[in-house]
């Protein structure tokens, strides 16, 4: 019998994958509730259907790869991926849209690369981008929020998902899209022109973002992740917006507050950018990684072809994460930094 030889530190990390994933799921609850309040049951239907599919695809992939199925299913990572992806999908999305998205996320982005911990790209964002470039019409059709149009009940939401041909719903552009399309107007005129804008940003969107911010802060308090990446991302996004915003015209791209509370900003900052697998590792690396995502989000929002940018920004920086790690490797204690002799 060989003796176990383990070097220090002998401390035990109480955080298992399962606990981390459960906390993340719990932290998305306020955001999901706010989305349901403003946009109806569509998001909930998406998430339940998506989570079922994710478990199905995950167990199929695990069986094919000859891995223990129940062990990996119990870590909730597939459910987290499905939840994050489905939050980002428009409510009342047809069932097949979610099938394609979850299949791309779980099968291609996760298991083809070796499963949890080996994926270089965030699976939820890969699923989202596959859908966005494949089905732009369905992916940019958001239902109007409470206060700007009628809401659908649970039955209508189920009908929209599973018999999309029979569903008759109204869809509208999102506030970020509107901002992009109405370049000639002043911000105030734009605000008055449509009921889609709320106090600081889009109606409903601002509260969803605040709810995700709250969930994210709770995760931070639980020490699921460090503050570096989300803070750097929000700071650089705000800085970019402040640099280009002239205070009135919508051509200048909206105030920092508008960008913080629009689209997927808070969901991205606290639930996507903080993904431990696909982000940079060192603290300095996380600062760079987050800051560049913020810059990219603003660049794509302001001058890109798509209204929101988080998925693209995150995927681009996923590519760059190993590169950032290479240059931000901390010097081990007792060694001299080779760069500064």
């Amino acid at each position, binding site marked *: 019998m060989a003796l176990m030889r383990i070097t220090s530190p002998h401390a035990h990390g109480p955080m298992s994958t399962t606990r981390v994933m459960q906390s993340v799921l719990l932290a998305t609850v306020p955001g999901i509730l706010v989305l349901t309040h403003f946009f109806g049951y569509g998001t909930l239907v998406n998430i339940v259907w998506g989570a079922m599919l994710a478990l199905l695809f995950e167990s199929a992939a695990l069986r094919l790869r000859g891995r223990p199925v129940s062990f990996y299913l119990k870590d909730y990572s597939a459910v987290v991926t499905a939840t994050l992806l489905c939050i980002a999908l428009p409510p009342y999305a047809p069932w097949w849209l979610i099938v394609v998205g979850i299949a791309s996320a779980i099968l*291609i982005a996760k298991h083809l690369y070796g499963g949890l911990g080996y994926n270089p790209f965030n699976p939820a964002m890969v699923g989202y981008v596959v859908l966005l*470039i*494949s*089905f*732009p019409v369905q992916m940019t059709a958001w239902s109007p929020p409470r206060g700007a149009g009628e809401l659908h009940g649970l039955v209508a939401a189920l009908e929209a998902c599973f018999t999309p041909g029979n569903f008759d719903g109204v869809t509208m552009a999102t506030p970020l899209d509107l901002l992009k399309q109405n370049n000639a107007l002043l911000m105030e005129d734009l605000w008055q022109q449509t009921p889609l804008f709320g106090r600081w940003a889009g109606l409903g969107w601002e509260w969803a973002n605040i709810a995700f911010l709250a969930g994210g802060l709770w995760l931070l308090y639980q020490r699921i992740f460090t503050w570096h990446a989300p803070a750097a991302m929000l700071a650089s996004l705000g800085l970019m917006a402040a640099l280009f915003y002239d205070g009135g015209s919508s051509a200048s791209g909206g105030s920092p507050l508008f960008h913080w509370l629009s689209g997927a900003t808070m969901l991205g900052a606290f639930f996507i950018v903080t993904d431990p697998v696909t982000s940079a590792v060192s603290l300095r690396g996380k600062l760079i990684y987050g800051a560049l995502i913020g810059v990219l989000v603003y660049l794509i929002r302001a001058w890109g072809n798509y209204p929101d940018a988080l998925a693209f920004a995150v995927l681009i920086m996923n590519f760059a994460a190993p590169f950032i790690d290479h240059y931000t490797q901390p010097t081990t204690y007792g060694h001299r930094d080779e760069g500064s002799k």
Partner: protein
Amino acid sequence: MAQASYRELSLNGLWKNNPAIVQLLGLCPLLAVTGSVVNAIGLASATTLVLICSNSSVSLVRNIVSDAIRLPVFVMIIAAAVTCIEMLMQAFTYELYQILGIFLPLITTNCVILGRADAFACKNSLAPAAYDGFIMGAGFGVILVLLGALRELLGTGALFANMDLLFGPAAASWKVVVISDYQPFLLAILPPGAFIFTGLIIAGKNLVDMNIKRRQDALKEKPVKGSKRVRVTGHIS
């Protein structure tokens, strides 16, 4: 180099040494123009014709071209063949010529062609060289058409659209709508789809190879436990 049998040449071109999914040569046109079956057939036939012409010509001149200048000579032969094919397509299938665009002249730089000229044609006589060109082109073309069909089917829900570009007006009705009321899956037609589906085809080929190997291994005689090794003392445990 010993003269390879035609059977072996066929097996090599179509399966064991397939230019597209084993050698992974000529990936640029493979990925770029396989958005539909008609594009795939067009490029596959053009490439095959060039391969036959270049392999035959290289085989004919192999004894009078010195080693030092063989590559420039091969490239000029290939370029001449490509120019002929390009002009033929411009004359007879003009729309397809326009769709394939830059990828027709780029056949010159397709590594499969120079690869076969240097690795096979310049060491073999005319008949095997021409046959090798044909079968390598066929192996390349099969994958091209398979990829084109997969991407067209998933991307548009139909197959064999616009075949009149290649086969004349009568072929306009060849289009088969496999799934009516289909939401176009743009990813399959866009470049990422080409990478994903090529990967899947390669994975499929490896899977078949693995199964064949497993079956062959199972057929081999296994040593019986306890039997004595030849020229080795001791027992197999």
